[in-house]
């Protein structure tokens, strides 16, 4: 797939470090799928689709070179994109628990619009809570590391409490890998289905370069969303990653 150029129609500041970029595009992504965004002369990086439908969007946290350049873009500027790529969420029946940590909420956005359930929005601090607005009419639970809003502590602790109170049919999660590792372990322990959207260093985005692989699974093509059957086999999850050279290093 070659790049197509899309125009940024609207930019929304979500948090001090996160912006949403709205655009129009004919592709038909599923929740959990991602695109490769190229900023010519700067960088190319993977980004989940955060709004699906006629008005699409990427919701981007400023991290390094590429995302910082993206944050400097204005309405009317262009993005070069290819995608959608990867395997998104498989929507399961029943009441769900959805746990988004930091920019992980970006990935979960379109899914949340399509499932019933409780939502945990977690972040380091109050200002960084993503999509509070968007899901204000839903059963949203908040966790902040510093206690500036909602539950004080990690999303995992809040999730544990909630799992004890209610039987969820399925857990969906996206966020820091260490958080997801814990959530997955808790779900498996309790025999609850779980789907997690992983993030790994991506180069090709199309399943040939091996840079995003974790224990034989390619995040870009076999994932980014995996379910418990696969997740249990990922010994490296939350423990080791591969750096740009392919070296296996502790997270």
């Amino acid at each position: 797939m070659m790049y197509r150029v899309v125009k940024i129609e609207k930019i929304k500041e979500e948090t001090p470090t996160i912006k949403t970029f709205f655009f129009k595009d004919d592709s038909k992504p599923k929740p959990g799928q991602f695109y490769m965004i190229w900023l010519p002369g700067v960088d190319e990086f993977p980004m989940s689709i955060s709004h699906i439908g006629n008005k699409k969007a990427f919701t981007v946290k400023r991290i390094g070179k590429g995302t910082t350049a993206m944050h400097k873009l204005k309405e009317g500027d262009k993005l070069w994109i290819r995608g959608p790529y990867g395997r998104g969420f498989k929507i399961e029946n029943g009441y769900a628990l959805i746990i988004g940590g930091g920019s992980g909420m970006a990935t979960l956005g379109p899914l949340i619009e399509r499932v019933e359930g409780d939502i945990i929005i977690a972040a380091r601090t109050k200002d960084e809570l993503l999509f509070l607005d968007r899901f204000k009419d839903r059963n949203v639970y908040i966790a902040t590391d510093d206690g500036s809003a909602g539950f004080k502590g990690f999303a995992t602790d809040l999730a544990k409490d909630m799992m004890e109170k209610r039987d969820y049919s399925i857990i969906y999660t996206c966020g820091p890998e260490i958080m997801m590792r814990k959530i997955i372990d808790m779900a498996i322990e309790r025999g609850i289905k779980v789907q997690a959207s992983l993030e790994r260093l991506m180069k090709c985005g199309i399943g040939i370069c091996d840079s995003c692989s974790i224990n034989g699974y390619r995040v870009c093509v076999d994932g980014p969303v995996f379910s418990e059957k696969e997740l249990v086999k990922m010994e490296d999850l939350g423990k080791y990653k591969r750096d740009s050279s392919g070296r296996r290093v502790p997270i």
Partner: protein
Amino acid sequence: MLNVEIGKLHFKNPLILASGILDEAGETMLRIAKSGAGGIVTKSIGKEPREGYENPVVYELPCGLLNAMGLPNPGIENYEDEIKIAKKGGVPIIGSIFGSNPEEFSYLAKKMEDYGADAVELNLSCPHAKGYGMEVGTDLELVEEIVDSVKREIKIPVWAKLTPNTSNIVEIAKAVENADALVLINTLKAMAIDIDAKRPVLKNVFGGLSGKAIKPIGIRAVYEVYREVGKPIIGVGGIENGRDAIEYIMAGASAVEIGTAIYTRGIGIFKEIAKEMEGWMRKNGYSKISQMVGIAQVR
């Protein structure tokens, strides 16, 4: 019916994973082995860890892929585990290595042998890494020295992978005739410009063209070299189905490597192509791969 021997190495089928495609991590290679590949060539490994070029490193074209990964690799000292894990797949693991001189190649080859690789493949042909690959691979004296020096250093077979970016691949093939097998071809030096961005797509500007587009060039290289050099040939370039694999074999290849088509057909491609080949062979009265090697040669 698909098993082949390349020198002293035995392959259950002639469909080998090409270097650079899903073969950096041991577990990924193990998975490919379990998916039906007859053998696996690792990502090209050098002396030091290399991050490779910045993104974009891959670009999808209508007839193939353009890539300039920049030879990213964890470095030979970090590669023992990956080989060990890959070996569990029960198929030959060929360690691909790159360097800029005979000493480097020999050092890397020895390490691969120590790690348990079944053969080494010398990457004399990457079209876009300064001081490596084809810059080495078109210097006839240098490639000869490299092959000879590696041959002296190790006991496992040495495969030499050549570049098609030359006016005379036969000449290069003859220079490396001491190798145990020749691997033809690596990618063609190429590039693409995005006219809306008004700049080259690949961060490195230049890259290598692989896939469907280059098959006719690969077939030609194998055909030309087969008639002039008496060593087994492994055909690579644009193989997408059983007919393509048989075409390479009829041109003179004893086995083939498959890379880009994994992107179009997925990891199941090895099993699928094996089936396609068997179907064709049965219909056409062949019971062994060796019966077809080079039969399209017109003398």
